[in-house]
């Protein structure tokens, strides 16, 4: 772990883009700046095959073993989460991401946070005057693609080998899937075990395939059949149209009367590490208890990553950047320059 230390990475383009926007007199809506929030990742709603891998409805987890495993294991645990603010302007929308990777060794949480800033427009006139402003017909897709790419770069570069990484968001879902699968494959090369974590979803793969008519969603199913500290058996899912969209997943219920969470790994991960998955689930359960937030259950290291991401964005203080630029904001719009 000696090679890893806390870092805040600010790409060179970050300031350059601010300068370009200033020079181009882009009209920002200073009141429209959003509070730091998580990106909405779409969970998979498609059609595919479900197989039962472990034919057990509920399996008890052992958090003590999870604790021992963290203390004594050769694996390092890390967590990833992000936070986002968007800044609307007449000419387009700016998105600032803080991507936070937090690495846990026995003594420390080491945060590595990377900021990214993109501005998207449909104005080709604006693009001609700029090197960094991005043209897009569909902002809501493009900013997510850029986010995934930056995230992948950060994790692949900085996440230590021989580790377990917990990533907030589904493995497969919408246009993100391909980037997740690339990330997964790159991490496996570094002997990193990626586990994706999903909270709150209307996914109904299990219900539709195995328990039709009994439950409204997979989360309801898991909530009803699991007791605190249990997980479901493992399920295998393969997309009907894209055979690489494969995942193995389980639902875990960390607290009473609280919706479970879903843990998923890619088939390649499963093949390489299936004998270790139980240990990893115990670790995750321990980290969920350690976090103990019943309103927002997530493994502690992911929660810490989320905190770092949000705090860094707060520290960036876009209001201040606009203010510092020396222009006086008008009632609704201010120029970013």
């Amino acid at each position, binding site marked *: 772990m000696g090679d890893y230390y806390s870092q805040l990475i600010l790409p060179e383009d970050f300031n350059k883009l601010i300068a370009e926007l200033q020079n181009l007199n882009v009209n920002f809506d200073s009141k429209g700046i959003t509070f730091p929030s998580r990106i909405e990742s779409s969970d998979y709603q498609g059609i595919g095959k479900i197989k039962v891998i472990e034919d057990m409805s509920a399996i008890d987890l052992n*958090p003590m073993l999870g604790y021992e495993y963290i203390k004594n294991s050769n694996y390092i645990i890390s967590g990833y989460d992000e936070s986002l603010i968007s800044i609307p302007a007449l000419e387009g929308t700016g998105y600032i991401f803080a991507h936070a990777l937090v690495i*846990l060794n*026995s003594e*420390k*949480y080491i945060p590595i946070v990377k900021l990214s800033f993109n501005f998207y427009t449909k104005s080709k006139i604006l693009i001609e005057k700029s090197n960094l402003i991005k043209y897009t017909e569909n902002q809501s897709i493009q900013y997510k693609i850029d986010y995934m790419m930056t995230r992948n770069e950060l994790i692949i570069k900085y996440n230590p080998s021989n580790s377990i990484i917990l990533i907030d968001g589904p493995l497969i879902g919408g246009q993100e899937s391909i980037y997740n699968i690339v990330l997964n494959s790159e991490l496996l090369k570094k002997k990193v075990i990626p586990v994706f974590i999903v909270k709150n979803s209307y996914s109904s793969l299990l219900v539709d395939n195995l328990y039709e008519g009994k439950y409204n969603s997979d989360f309801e199913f898991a909530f009803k059949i699991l007791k605190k500290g249990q997980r479901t058996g493992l399920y295998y899912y393969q997309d009907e149209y894209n055979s690489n969209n494969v995942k193995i997943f389980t639902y875990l219920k960390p607290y009473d009367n609280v919706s479970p969470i879903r843990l998923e790994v890619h088939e390649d991960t499963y093949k390489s590490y299936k004998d270790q998955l139980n240990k990893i689930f115990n670790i995750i359960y321990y980290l969920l208890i*350690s976090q*103990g937030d019943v309103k927002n259950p997530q493994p502690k290291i992911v929660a810490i990553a989320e905190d770092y991401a949000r705090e860094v964005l707060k520290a960036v203080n876009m209001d201040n950047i606009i203010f510092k630029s020396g222009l006086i904001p008008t009632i609704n719009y201010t120029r970013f320059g």
Partner: protein
Amino acid sequence: MRLITLGEEGGKIKLISRDTENDGIIPYGSYITVEDYDKKFILRVENSQQINYFNVSPMLADMDLKPLLVDQKVRNIVSAIRIMEIPQREDGLNSYIKPMLFARRSNQEEINYIMNNQRGVPIFSATIYAYTTQVFKDENKNPIIVHIPEKFFFYQTLITGATGSGKTAAMKYFAQYFIEKLETYDGPGAVLAINVKEDDLLYMDKPSRTNRKEIIDEWKAIGEEPHGINSFRIYYPGNNVPTSKKIDRNKAISITIKTNKLNPENLSGIIQNLPEKGAEQIIDIFRYWQVKVMGRDGNGDKMSDFIDYFIDPNKERVYNALTENGNTFQYTLHPSTYYSLKNAFITASKFFDVDNAVELEAKDILERRKMSVIDLSQKNAIGFGAILLRDILDKIYEEKNKGESNSDVPILIIIDEVHEFYGNSKTYEALKTLDAIARKGRSLGIGVIFASQNLEDIPSGISKIVNTKIFFKGYSQKDVHKIINDDALAPGYAISKIYGLSFVNLIKFPLPLGGLYEK
């Protein structure tokens, strides 16, 4: 330990302990030095608490699970006020204390610099955290000494605190310094102390005794060893010979007041619960007796003669009275006033006009390097003591004012349990001499230390004339807005507002070098 500056919040600099040098919590009252290249800033810690790096859920404990070490990590978050910048700027501005600067505990050299004074009464800078008081130490564990500038003595001092709080020990410490070390006014000086409780101040000629290493270390830190005061006298009223085994009887002298010479004004303190009017009446009645009756027509001039005159049933509590201006009136004393005064005079009378006892004069007190203690600790001596105290203060003040022989000797007057003597002194009139002393103390070289257990006991007139206040544990029942929890003050520790040392607010007194035997 090291701290890192974060910024300013509500007028205070916010700091957090550095992760790698995070030994413990820096207590309230500590001084810290922030370094910024060629500049330094000295700050005083105003608030200090521990914060968790990361929240830990109680669910872990509920399930008998151990926390990870990293989740048990805590840091110290501190807010501190800016005391001084070194070097000070000459352009009238103050430098910014930037975020992300390192800070450490200040050292003696830096403290000396900000105090701008390395002379005066050495005491220790102190700190408090929760219920723990400690002497403030630098990074090398050396205690930090601050010097109370000597001029504070002459701006009058109030010391309060409960029994066992260190109040009397502090008075002894000041007294011995005044006698042995004072340099101001061509010191050393003389001390007059009033002893009201047990043998508290009666063996100041003996070295203090203790087996506690920390006390001996403190003496070493200030370069001192225990020793008594060489020139020491105890004055006791009439036949009230002090009985304590610790005292040297050869140093005890019986004193009295001759009634015929008694200034009527000095009777004002004979009863502390006497209403203001009653006090005025007895002064005028006594004055009339002294001028018009005493020594005439077969009347004697002793206190017993005045008492006979006073309690004469034929008078039916109606008395002639002579005011200071020479006007004659008739007063009818209220029965309760009459009986209170009668009892007080009868009680005090045995101390007046005592044969073989001397009258205490200013010259007895105004002797360099001498400590004089008037012992009023024995039965029924307080009423007489109140009169005696006024008498001797008058004499000292006059002597000083006249500028005769010993008048250049600086004097420190220590009045313990001051409410016993000035409890009803709310007006300027009643505090006339004290007020004059307080106001002219600087020019005449007279300092007064007023002490009492409770702040509430201190006559309001006195609170107004003191410039230094030292509060030991239990100093006030009423002050609920105490900034520092004084219940947590260990013996010898005090909250201070010292003249000339304004930014030191928590101190620890060394044990006095003389006159204290630790059990």
